[in-house]
């Protein structure tokens, strides 16, 4: 027994001594060797993060909106079924954990170092993100957000409060950007680090916000007039707020996602384009909009020509193009587009939830503008990566986040509805002209010019014809409401590639008023006035319950509950 105690003591001493010796070693294993330490924080790297993630965020907002405004097809068939709550997890996470968190971290460090351009850019992008979250979801966390463990269940702020905070932040950004900066950002993909352009954007975003909230803000007119008088808005193509993609295919894939989803493999076109959008450009005016061949690329010029080897069998075609063999839905008004349009414009009707047919190599795909795909000069060729397929502009697409044409259309809407400065008709025509200029110049800007045949390209002659047509249409319109419809239709066409602006416009104005109805069912339920809350938000935040209906309105939307289709 005595011996045992002695041995026990010896062992204990060894153990205790051993632990002491290893304590330093233990401490050294607490720091993650796989990640850089906090001291390596770098304002430029943070800003790059905000810049790229703002693009991710806006792209997601645009992609979620575009089926609702018939740019791409909505599967549906009901609005209730269109999106499950997980559809919004990505955009939510990007907004809060990438844009906001990184911007919040960056701003104080940058200002301490006098890097005012860095901090100003972060503020502008943060403000844009805040407003867009409200536009999509309604009330969202802001004042209690981004506090980490200090508040694990942030409550939602009222949409108007978030908007107010965003506008204040834009003012703040304008001040910050006006200061002399100690350094310029290295990778400002939007504006090459030019602070003045960011100031112009900030002011334009204020204009956008005032038009957006005009239904609930009696002071909107004065605020808009003040901005117009100030004269520093995006009215010139050189100030367009766009994100230009690269052409690198992998590691990292820097191409436009719409391009990758269509031209990136040999599988053919990914998502279906909306029949309505194809019709609005190719057919509605009775002549083809000169932008049509830039926006859309037809893989197959004649989908009902059975001699085309890509359409081998009538039974297959009957499956792929079931709508073609069916009567127009009885609830469609006369003149409404339906199914495949003459000339091979093969999209998909709104709310057609049938399975994907074997039509990937024949249906119409995204074109050169803005996706970086192909210009349609009647190649009649499928898209894809292998030889003989159409590759287009290799994915050098562009995200039209806010263009000079948009500014004109918003001003036109404001002038018409609120009597702000300027002539609505002239502003609208300026907007159309700006859009044509943008689209026509785009292929050249990415060194893509597959044809010089003016039959396929935008020419002044075609533009003038178009402008004259719309001018006459506008002047012939009987009411302000009809005039507004024409303005918003042109805005809708000019915004191609941006789903968010038309979605906001549609909820604000219910225009354009002839959107295609759902094809497979007569009643798709109430239009989505704001999205369901994201799954990661409702399922992890105690203070939130999911919306149960699709027509919960955003604060700036005072229109009737069931105005839309």
């Amino acid at each position, binding site marked *: 027994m005595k011996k045992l105690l002695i041995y026990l003591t010896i062992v204990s001493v060894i153990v205790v001594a051993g632990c002491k010796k290893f304590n330093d070693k233990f401490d050294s294993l607490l720091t*993650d060797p796989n990640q850089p*330490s906090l001291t390596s924080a770098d304002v430029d790297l943070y800003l790059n993060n905000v810049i790229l993630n703002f693009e991710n965020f806006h792209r997601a907002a645009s992609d979620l909106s575009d089926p609702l405004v018939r740019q791409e097809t909505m599967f549906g068939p009901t609005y209730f079924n269109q999106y499950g709550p997980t559809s919004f997890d990505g955009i939510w996470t990007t907004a809060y954990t990438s844009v906001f968190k990184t911007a919040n971290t960056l701003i104080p460090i940058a200002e301490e170092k006098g890097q005012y351009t860095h901090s100003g850019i972060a503020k502008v992008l943060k403000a844009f993100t805040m407003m867009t979250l409200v536009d999509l979801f309604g009330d969202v966390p802001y004042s209690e957000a981004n506090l980490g463990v200090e508040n694990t269940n942030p409550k939602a702020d009222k949409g108007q409060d978030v908007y107010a905070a965003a506008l204040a932040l834009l003012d703040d950004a304008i001040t910050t950007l006006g200061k002399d900066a100690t350094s310029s950002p290295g990778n400002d993909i939007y504006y090459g680090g030019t602070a003045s352009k960011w100031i112009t954007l900030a002011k334009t975003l204020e204009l956008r916000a005032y038009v957006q909230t005009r239904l609930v803000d009696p002071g909107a007119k004065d605020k808009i007039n003040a901005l117009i008088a100030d004269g520093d808005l995006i009215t010139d193509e050189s100030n367009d707020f766009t994100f230009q993609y690269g052409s690198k295919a992998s590691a990292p894939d820097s191409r436009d996602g719409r391009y990758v989803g269509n031209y990136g493999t040999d599988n053919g076109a990914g998502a279906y384009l909306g029949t309505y959008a194809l019709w609005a450009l190719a057919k509605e005016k009775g002549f083809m909009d000169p932008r049509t061949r830039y926006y859309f690329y037809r893989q197959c010029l004649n989908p009902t020509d059975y001699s085309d080897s890509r359409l081998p069998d009538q039974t297959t075609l009957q499956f792929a193009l079931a709508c073609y063999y069916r009567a127009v839905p009885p609830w469609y008004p006369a003149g409404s587009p339906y199914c495949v349009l003459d000339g091979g414009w093969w999209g998909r009707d709104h709310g057609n939830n049938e399975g994907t047919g074997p039509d990937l190599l024949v249906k119409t795909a995204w074109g050169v503008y803005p996706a970086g795909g192909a210009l349609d000069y009647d190649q009649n060729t499928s898209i894809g990566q292998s030889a003989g397929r159409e590759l287009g502009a290799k994915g050098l697409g562009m995200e039209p986040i806010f263009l000079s044409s948009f500014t004109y259309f918003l001003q036109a809407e404001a002038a018409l509805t609120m009597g702000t400065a300027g002539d609505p008709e002239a502003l609208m025509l300026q907007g159309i002209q700006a859009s044509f200029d943008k689209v026509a110049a785009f292929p050249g800007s990415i060194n893509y010019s597959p044809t010089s045949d003016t039959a396929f390209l935008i020419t002044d002659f075609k533009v003038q014809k178009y402008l004259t047509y719309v001018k006459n249409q506008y002047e012939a319109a009987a009411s302000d409401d009809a005039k507004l419809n024409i303005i918003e239709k042109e805005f809708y066409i000019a915004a191609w590639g941006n789903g968010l602006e038309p979605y906001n416009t549609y909820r604000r104005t219910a225009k354009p008023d002839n959107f295609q109805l759902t094809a497979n069912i007569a009643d798709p339920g109430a239009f989505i006035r704001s999205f369901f809350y994201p799954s990661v938000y409702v399922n992890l*935040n105690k203070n939130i319950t999911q919306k149960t209906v699709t027509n919960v309105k955003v604060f700036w939307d005072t229109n009737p509950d069931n105005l839309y289709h």
Partner: protein
Amino acid sequence: MRKLTLLFLSICVFCALDTWAQNTVTGQVTDANGLPIPGATIKIKNSKSGTTAAADGSFKLNVPANGVLVVSGVGFETKETTVSGSTVSISLKQSDQSLNEVVVTALGIKREKKALGYSVTTVGKESLELRSEGDVGRVLNGKVAGLDVLNTSGISGSGTNISIRGISSITGGASTPLFIVDGVPFDGGNNASEGFQFGGGSTTSSRFLDLDPNNIESINVLKGLSASTLYGEAARNGVILVTTKNGAGGKLQKKKEITVSQSVFANRVSNLPDYQHTYGGGFDLVPSAAFSNWGQAFTNPPLQVAYSPSLQASYPDLYGNGAKQDYKDYANNVKDFFRTGLVKTTSVNITGGSDKASFNANYSYMDDQGFTPGNRVYKNNFGVGGTAKLTNRFTLNSVFNFAITDFQTPALGANSGGGGPDVTSVFGYLIFTPRSINLMGLPYEDPLTHSSIYYRGGNDIENPRWTAANATNTDKTYRSFGSMGLKYDLTKAITLNYRFGYDVYSDQTSLQVNKGGKSGGANYVNGLYRTSSIFNTILNHLLFVTYNGKLNTNFSLEANVGADFGKKTFSRDGLKSTYQTVYGLFNHGNFTSHDIYSEGGALIDYNAEKITAGAYFHGSLGYRDYLYLTVEGRNDWVSTLEKKNRTLFYPGVSASFIPTSAIESLKGSKAINYLKLRVGFSTSAHFPDPYNTRPSLAIATNAFVDLNGNVVNVGAIPNRLPNPNLKPELLKETEAGIEGKFWDNRISLDLTAYYRTSTDQILDRQLDPSTGSTVTQVNAGSVDNKGIEAGLGVTVFRNKDWTWDLNGVFTLNRSKVHDMPDDIKQIVTAGFTNLGTFAINGQPLGVLQGNYRQVDAKTGKYIVDDNGYYLGSSDIGIIGDPNPKYKLTGISTLTYKNISFRMQWDYTHGGVIWSNTVRTMLSRGLTKDTDFDRKLPYILPNTVKSDGSPNDYQQSVDNIYFNAIGFGPSDVTTWDATLIRLRELSVSFSLPARLLDKTPFGSISLVLTGNNLWYLAPNFPKYTRFDPESNSLGVTNYKGLDLFAGPSARRYGGSIRVTF
């Protein structure tokens, strides 16, 4: 073989002629109380002749003069009696084998089972050897109460889930028990570098696959937390203590023997859906190249349809120019995709020794071909171990094992069942192949480019045959593990021990996808090659002192004090390349683009190191061989926590009492041969994974390359919020049990009830991203597990020739989550946030939530929308509990002389699974479940419209199935997973030893085995024939989601073993 038989026959004849002068003896065999012992064996010493006692214990035998009778009975001590007259009365003493049963416990210390205050289950080599499975985990399935085994897939070599006594940790990773091989920690993890969506868990093996079941002497499963006192926090999920034949040489033995065994099994797919043969691919009764099978009914003569555009383009002469094919039932198109694999195992074991030293060496080779083309496992295991007594006081014991495991499978991503751009998976587009698709009769690749061609018009999905041939996951491991121990006998009672153990392996995994595929998007279809190289080490030093002796006449003490130090390192690096240049070559140089992120987007490079130190004591005080009290405790120091929190002390106490030894009236009782009562309280610790306490930055290089080629790098703050105040977690467990043998040892019972709770868990607490982070680790939430484990053995009858044993194993576990702090709504534990498993206060851990059908309050019926489809909810709710209610295994062993017939039936009651396989079978009209007249309109039964009136929305039946089931709310396709299975059927035969006396053979035995010969999951749609025993979530604590995990395996074949 025939020669051998002749030899045996001649030996038999020789034996029969061998006679002596003799006289007839009659007698009776009784027990200590004078009661007869029927079936007792009476043999004549040094002779082959003998007999068996009748029901009254009587016998009659010819005995030579002065012959010695050797009398034995099961449960009795063998007795020798010299015959001196013509009658004899023999009384046998009840054997106390139960009393002296010795089990190997933690650290390889052998203890008398009666002294243990906790439950240990031993599985002997006879239940492990010569099996068709090379995976120890799967071999153990159903054999141990409280042990739950779930496959990730039927693919040979795919990962395996094992858990003991339920799941204690909400987010602590897979609750795989600690493997201890020959006293040394052994990594049993699964090095999945991807989430389950990318096949993580099923395309990499669970590393206990590196063990060779044929080289295992025994496995002891230590279920309770008390095991962790000696092994530290890693043992909190229980311990699977493996003693290899090489490591069993702890005691010196002089036996010299060579054992050679050879097994051959066929490996076939066990469960394909029972497809209907009436309708073909298409929709709305129109034939077409659809995913769905809602096309027109087959006709005679068959409709003629064109070949797919891709076939025409690749083979214009054969399939172009207007050539047509039959639109008919290609009845075996899916079945014929599979093959019969062969599983061959060769094993050699050599053992020998002298007074001073003994050794064992083992080599085995296994070649396991899966039933899926492209799936196989090669295993090479080599081991040698030995013991040498160096001087009178030193003993050296050393084991060395080396394993090469080479696993290969076609890609196995989770699959949504149609259309979607899922990652490539061999089962993804296979199981729901329309009936009219001639999968096996047409080419699957272009003869020039080798790109996939298939039936779809746009050639937009991958031909499964192409996937099997061109998209491969590989996982190759070189592993060395073993130990060296030195024991010094200080006194007779006190020994000093040191042991060094190591487990070191390199694990090379890859994904190889040739260009020309169709699934997975741009990264896959242009060719993908991802290699990861993992290097994992576990080094362990252990020093301990044992005392084992009598303190006085009444008290004995067994004590053990020790300290250990362990270090675990993990490092992984690798590269992903895309855009293959030349088809067929997998070398990064043959790819044009290189990346540091894996196919799932995770950074491949990762390094982690963790060190642990522990000191423990363990003392067991015995009083007069029937009362034992054990007190133990351990303190751990672990490097993953800040200094103030890195240590935890956790004690345990247990007692055992043997009434049959203590109470005079029970001694020698015939009804109660042995009874032991035990009760214990034990604790264990859980320390977090490394790097959760300190902040760091995240850097992503090459995040974007702009128009002009400028590379943009980004800096970020990680979404995981560090928690410097994180503390270790304490687990507590109370268990009580009864062990007993009754009625002449014919009935044995081992019953345990336990209650385990872990409070203030180390919880990966997910955060609403609007907090700025997505996850942080906190101490919160509790899980209780209570359960019953029972083992019951009954010898139905036993006589001279026949023995029939029945063994039952029962496992019941109920878990409950509680005390989740108010600020946590719920925790997503696996799957997706809108369809997955969750931890919710008051609910069993891992309940399944998803969106669900809305119910009309008045009628209680489901509501349909204006299209006649189920109206789903916008939120999620509980749609079922995937945890089984209980599991039951019945093993019957019937032995006639040297032939043994064994059956193992497993029954699982309850638990639910959301099955995408079944969902797809139904919604696409493939199985006989949908073999009805499809022309008639259809209304979803038992439904009402939103106003409560009866549903009268007619739809075509395919629209209903496609939209209401295929795209309906999740609860529509969630089924009860009750399952009954004939897991194993075997017949074994061993040649009687006396036949081999004159041969070089020590023994020869033959076993014929069939595994998974039949099963039934009665609550799934009948013809889908779904096997719920797989888990698409990979190697994890959670189950309940099937995403085309693929069918399970059926294996049958035979083994022969010969010893020299």
